[in-house]
């Protein structure tokens, strides 16, 4: 039995040693908030929001934890919302990735008296229906529609929509809005590209080879835009297709400068991270609350304003 007890002690000690560095230092007296996103671990776009909540936490002397379902499974996300509710933070910031799935858990948090601010995905109406304080985000369909109208002006007749998170309805709204803006029904131009860069590149290449008449491309974010840029370069189509994308990354910024990309739709994620922390902190401390929702986007980034944006891409923009 002695060896077995020794092993138990060693195991416990090892777990302690590993857990030690991970454990946060003892909390300051500041408020504690939790942000729950729908993004899988591999999604780089959320770095900006992580930076924003880190800085907001530092500036306001509060603690903000970031949580996400590792595989992007929204059912796992619902459990995370329930978990945060059980832990009684001073506020929850959450995306409405799917209204049906998250309705129950978010409403329960509100019912328990935890202030909730919704961000990024979802609509202002859904946010109000759940009893959240406000919504900070970009209306997806409208942003897609605005992009589609720009594409139509540039003469786009048939397009490809590179969707790297097809399981999220917001992504389909973007493609659908773009299709309506161009004035073409959405059929099989929506490509389920997955998130692996090599696969995205090869799928785009295959589609463009099979549909040589395509003269417009919409990418839904850095994860689909960067490989699409590479695919266009290899096909010698860069600059020949009207290429628009959602969101911003260093690669996208370079693409705008070189003329490969016509525009990027910026929903200004930094605001989606920073502002809810401000709102919740002020609400908790003084009971003050703005009377409306905040539209963080859409802003269009083109050759004209890229210089100011570029320095900050990937970190603040």
């Amino acid at each position: 039995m002695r060896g077995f007890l020794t092993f138990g002690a060693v195991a416990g000690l090892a777990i302690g040693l590993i857990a030690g560095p991970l454990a946060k230092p003892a909390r300051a007296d500041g408020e504690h908030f939790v942000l729950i996103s729908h993004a899988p671990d591999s999604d780089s776009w959320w770095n900006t929001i992580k930076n924003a909540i880190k800085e907001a936490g530092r500036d306001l002397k509060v603690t903000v934890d970031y949580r996400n379902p590792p595989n992007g499974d929204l059912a796992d996300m619902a459990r995370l919302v329930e978990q945060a509710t059980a832990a009684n933070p001073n506020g929850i910031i959450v995306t409405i990735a799917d209204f049906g799935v998250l309705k129950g858990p978010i409403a329960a948090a509100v019912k328990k008296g935890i202030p909730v601010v919704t961000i990024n995905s979802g609509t202002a109406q859904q946010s109000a229906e759940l009893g959240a304080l406000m919504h900070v985000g970009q209306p997806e369909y409208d942003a897609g529609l605005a992009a589609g109208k720009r594409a139509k002006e540039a003469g786009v007749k048939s397009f490809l929509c590179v969707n790297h998170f097809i399981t999220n309805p917001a992504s389909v709204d973007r493609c659908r809005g773009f299709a309506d803006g161009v004035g073409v029904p959405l059929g099989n131009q929506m490509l389920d590209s997955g998130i692996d860069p090599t696969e995205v590149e090869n799928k785009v290449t295959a589609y463009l080879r099979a549909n040589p008449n395509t003269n417009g491309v919409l990418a839904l974010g850095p994860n689909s835009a960067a490989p699409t840029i590479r695919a266009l370069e290899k096909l010698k189509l860069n600059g020949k297709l009207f290429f628009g994308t959602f969101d911003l990354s260093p690669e996208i910024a370079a693409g705008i400068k070189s003329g490969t990309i016509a525009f990027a739709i910026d929903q200004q994620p930094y605001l989606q991270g920073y502002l809810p922390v401000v709102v919740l902190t002020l609400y908790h401390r003084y009971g003050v609350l703005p009377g409306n929702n905040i539209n963080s986007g859409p802003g269009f980034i083109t050759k004209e304003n890229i210089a100011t944006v570029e320095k900050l891409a990937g970190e603040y923009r």
Partner: protein
Amino acid sequence: MMQVSKAAGASAGAKSSADERVRKMHWAQRAFMRPELGAAAGALLVLGFFMAVAPNSGMFNADGIFNWLTVSAQLGVIAIGASLLMIAGEFDLSIGSMIGFSGMMVAIPAVYWGVPVWLSILFAFAGGIALGLLNGLIVVRTRLPSFIVSLAFLFILRGLTLALSILLTNRTIVSGVADRAKGDWLAPFFGGTVGEPVFVLLANWHLIGQFPDGSPVVPGVPVIVVWWLVLAFVGSFVLTRTQFGNFIFASGGDANAARNLGVPVARVKVLLFGVTAACATLYGVSQVMDFGSAAADRGLQKEFEAIIAAVIGGSLLTGGYGSVVGACFGALIFGVVQQGIYFANWSSDWFRVFLGVMLLMAVLFNKAVRRRVTGER
């Protein structure tokens, strides 16, 4: 072989005390020889660990407990199927894809074709079990390793889930099941909670937390938790107390020897593939009933979690040894660790690292316990 049950017909006449296989043992000694002991000890270890590091985090309040218990229960349901199959010496890597596929089999008929929800649920189970049996038949007929066959099914089913949902509905999340399930006689068996009045009472006596309006923070026991307990009992009974249970051990221990003794190895294995698929379907259906929607990416990587839970529970990757109760403790460890990391407020960037280390520890601990008590090398 674990225990020889009466059903196997250990001839009662041959009780010579010289035969070490039928010698009398003290009950405590016998309890220590069970494969689930290591997992049970591991579960106590992680629970104690989180009680120490996250005592006032809400993890051990009513809503916190049901949060990690629900995660454990969901995983437990598929871990039971996975462990039975593993004891029989086979693998099923298509469990996670089956969760997504079965969810669509419920949601699409119910929402788009106007099929009553109870019929959609039965359809999903029939379809799921049929696919599981097909999986098993291919393994048995082709003699290919089940690892390969079920890996193919992992991709086939995940692909079908996405392709068919886009083809039939043009979307990847099919919601609206909740409205269709209202008033359905079968739906309450797969979603929602049971025992509400008890929880109202508990809340009134302030034994569990209340919402500001006085209703309990936990409406009731999630149905999936009840399923988990029922399946654990049934699965464990079948494995340790019936002839079929002995067939399972024999098929995984040495398929050729079992065949020579007249054990219908092929039939046992095919049937267990069906059971595993049924467990995955139960998971998928209950998730659809809970959230009111099916999605193409449900159940990603759950097959590995189920196998890990079974391994922590003492099942050997090579078959022939293991336990259903152990797999349930394995699932409990997984749920406690996965949600506990959040309650303890560790950065989720480190989640996977920590989970991996914790799992390795649990398995090593488990093995050390087993070695002490069974004298295996």
